[in-house]
């Protein structure tokens, strides 16, 4: 008994040291598994989008899908030409860009180059507040504020229309454009500006001819990221721009975007295994491809921009 005691003591000490070690490796594995979940999610998205849209593309040839001009999934004769959804999405995206890009860039220039610390500390949280408004609320504004405002100007306008959708989505992505552009401007080294001032340039000249060109790749990345956000925006366009899939470039008409189609079809009944359900994923994979394309370009631009000044 006595001889065993010291041994027990030693082994006790050993386990006291090995418990933290076991916890250590357990935590390392747990945290690793958590980090891996993001990779699983990505593959999950790709797998789901592809596997669920393959049955769709077996029934509808991709050529008919991408070149067809009629999107009529519920009424006979059914037709799955995605072009009306794509043009609807592009009208909204381009329109939102026209609203958000000039306003956002000029706001960023004011905040980064002109505003005093105090003014900036007031204005910036207000813009962030604009960014925090839920997208469905923007849809409400489109329906009940922007469209009534447009009615006297454009008498033929429909109660949901692409123009109102583009305007509210533009306002929605404005804070994003502004804050990303501001980051890009802030990263331009001070001496570059000083050199321009030393040559006698005014502040407007320094900004438009030195600072903005120097930050250009970052600014372009900001624009593209914002457009990608507009492209994937759902609730605001589902309310403000409507749910009429039609191939038109007339902004006073009601259109349907890819996202709005997915939402309005999901709201009804789309049981698993039906063409209706597969069409959701076919539109989803198209949307995903568009945003992925834009995000990759933006990432390239950001990398280029970092190489110059970091």
């Amino acid at each position: 008994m006595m001889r065993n005691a010291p041994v027990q003591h030693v082994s006790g000490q050993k386990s006291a040291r090995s418990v933290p070690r076991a916890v250590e490796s357990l935590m390392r594995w747990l945290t690793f598994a958590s980090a891996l979940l993001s990779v699983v999610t990505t593959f999950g998205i790709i797998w789901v989008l592809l596997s669920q849209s393959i049955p769709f593309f077996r029934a509808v040839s991709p050529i008919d899908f991408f070149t067809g001009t009629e999107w009529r999934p519920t009424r006979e004769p059914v037709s799955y030409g995605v072009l009306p959804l794509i043009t609807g999405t592009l009208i909204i995206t381009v329109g939102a860009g026209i609203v958000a890009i000039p306003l956002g860039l000029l706001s960023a220039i004011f905040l980064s180059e002109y505003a005093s610390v105090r003014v900036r500390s007031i204005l910036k949280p207000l813009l962030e507040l604009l960014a925090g408004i839920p997208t469905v609320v923007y849809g409400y504004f489109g329906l009940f504020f922007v469209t009534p405002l447009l009615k006297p100007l454009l008498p033929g306008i429909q109660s949901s229309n692409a123009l109102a959708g583009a305007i509210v989505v533009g306002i929605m992505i404005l804070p994003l454009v502004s804050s990303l552009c501001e980051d890009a401007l802030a990263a331009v080294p001070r001496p570059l500006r000083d050199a321009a001032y030393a040559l006698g340039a005014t502040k407007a000249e320094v900004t438009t001819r030195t600072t903005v060109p120097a930050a250009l790749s970052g600014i372009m990345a900001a624009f593209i990221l914002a457009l990608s956000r507009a492209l994937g925006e759902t609730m605001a366009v589902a309310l403000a721009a409507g749910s009429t899939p039609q191939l038109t470039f007339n902004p006073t008409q009601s259109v349907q975007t890819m996202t709005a189609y997915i939402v309005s079809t999901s709201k009804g009944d789309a049981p698993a295994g039906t063409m209706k359900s597969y069409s959701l994923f076919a539109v989803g994979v198209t949307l995903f491809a568009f945003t992925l394309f834009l995000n990759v370009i933006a990432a390239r631009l950001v990398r280029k921009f970092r190489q110059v000044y970091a």
Partner: protein
Amino acid sequence: MMTASSYTRKRRRKDGAFRALCFTAVAFSVLLLFIFLIKIVHDGAPRFSLEFIGSPLSGRPARTGIWPAVVGSLWIMALTGALSVPIGVAAAIYLEEFTLKKTAFIRFIQLNISNLAGVPSIVYGLLGLAVFSRWFNLQQSILAGAFTMSLLVLPMVIIVTQEALRAVPQSYRDGSLALGSTRWQAIRLQVLPAAMPGILTGVILAMSRAVGETAPLIVVGAASFVPGAPSKLNDLYTVLPIQIFDWSLESRKGFNDAAASAILFLMLLLLSMNSLAIWLRARSASRSVR
């Protein structure tokens, strides 16, 4: 031929005009915010009352309330938080604390997380529909919605936590390790407490994103007409933004106004969450100065 002084004057005028233009852009954006807020209060205030918040749904616009949607939103927020915060913080700890070298694999995970943050929310809805609703057979339950929402906010939680961890001085870790702690002990006892205000701020912002998000929940089958509040994980449910969406599409004006009242409540909820986040950030900033 322009004289030098008139040329200078012209440049100065242009300078002033450009400044005014930039200021107008900001002022206009802020003005839009105020117009929006005024519009919401104007449309929503008449119906807004404790009774409106606490009443069940009704087919008559004058009697309907938002209680089922409020409870549904709180369920989704609580479950999303409970799922995404531990996993997100753990992932951030792995990326920032357990990996000493930024290997190609770590860079891949990092790239992957920033890409996920740019995926449209509705695509998460499709993922949730295929995986949680159908494959796991969770149907249209709160659980399917919360799982989907957790995947959506996860990149955001990871990114803000990483930023908070990066802001903790290296000396905290070194000091702890020098006293013989393991890496996990240093994380748990030194790094995490120091990063906590930053993490909490980020988590609150991620949760407010979850409350305002709508599209993925519609895709995974949140219903629109749920008269009573959900009480179990597999109950049908609705959330505030979906209620707002449906009432906005109604042809009866009374429902449109009810939508505005629901927006008012949602905005007040988000505003109080954001104020809490700003207060936490300010408090931790004033502490670290001391």
